[in-house]
């Protein structure tokens, strides 16, 4: 039963992956990628990692691909519909390179036997069910040995959101000359009162010395 499910999910993921790469319209490609995400989430469930499957669906299908679809809606891509959707000469580079990569990756994948008992880690399925599931196991690892990468990922997301805001923001003169003005204005309005404060403080101190 699970063999059949594995075969089916893999087959459908491959077919929809082909659809993502080969379909003409970018919207159809994005919807095909949503189907790939769902089937990969199904494979995660089959492995016993239901938490990752939920995250996969929420983050990929719910956030990233919706972002792609919104961008397509904003950019109006339908105007070049009659042109070829593949490079003319790069196609002859892509087929051999893709084939070579597939053969190599398949070779490596099929050479991987299931790990021997001596190499197994401490999170066996029994221990995971004792902890309460994959999510508890991930939390156990995340907040102990993987705490620093977790924090760094948070900083990365913050940096990416700031970068997206400053890139997609429509500046006043539509060039980068507007950026330093904004920065100096903000800095000026923040620094100015403190400078005055320190001056008046100095003055009052001098008055205090005079008295």
């Amino acid at each position: 039963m699970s063999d059949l499910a594995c075969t089916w999910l893999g087959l459908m993921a491959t077919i929809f992956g082909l659809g993502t790469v080969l379909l003409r319209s970018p919207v159809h490609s994005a919807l095909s990628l949503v189907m790939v995400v769902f089937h990969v989430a199904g494979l995660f469930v089959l492995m016993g990692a239901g938490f990752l499957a939920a995250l996969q669906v929420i983050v990929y299908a719910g956030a990233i691909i919706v972002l792609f679809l919104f961008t397509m809606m904003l950019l109006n891509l339908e105007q070049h519909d009659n042109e070829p959707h593949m490079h003319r000469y790069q196609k002859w580079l892509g087929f051999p390179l893709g084939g070579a990569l597939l053969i190599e990756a398949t070779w490596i994948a099929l050479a991987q036997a299931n790990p021997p008992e001596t190499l197994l880690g401490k999170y066996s399925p029994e221990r995971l069910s004792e902890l309460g599931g994959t999510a508890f196991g991930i939390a156990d690892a995340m907040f102990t040995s993987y705490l620093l990468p977790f924090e760094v990922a948070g900083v990365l997301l913050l940096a990416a959101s700031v970068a997206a805001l400053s890139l997609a923001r429509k500046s006043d003169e539509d060039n980068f000359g507007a950026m330093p003005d904004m920065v100096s204005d903000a800095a000026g309005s923040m620094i100015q009162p403190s400078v005055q404060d320190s001056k008046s403080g100095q003055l009052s101190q001098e008055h205090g010395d005079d008295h």
Partner: protein
Amino acid sequence: MADYLNSYLFIGAILFTLGAFGVIVRRNIIVVLLSVELMLQGVNLSLGAFSTFYHDMGGYMLVLLSLAIAAAEAVVGLAILVALSRHVDEFYVDRLKSLRW
């Protein structure tokens, strides 16, 4: 077959190859970004399979980090695309060559 590491790695290899093929071959810049996401799907599947079969949480953590990186990459890529769309009316990667030489 569902009990073997090989089958998951094989599916991951197929997805990664399809994504790489799409990055090389497609002209539309949005489909190139979508193909990068497809490559990340293959890598996520392989990492999750390794983590499951080796009874270790490192692969799951890497899947989480790669989700964060995929989100950051998509956001920055699409923001660059939106900024680009103010200057040119062209979304084919072989025509955007003002930075090439």
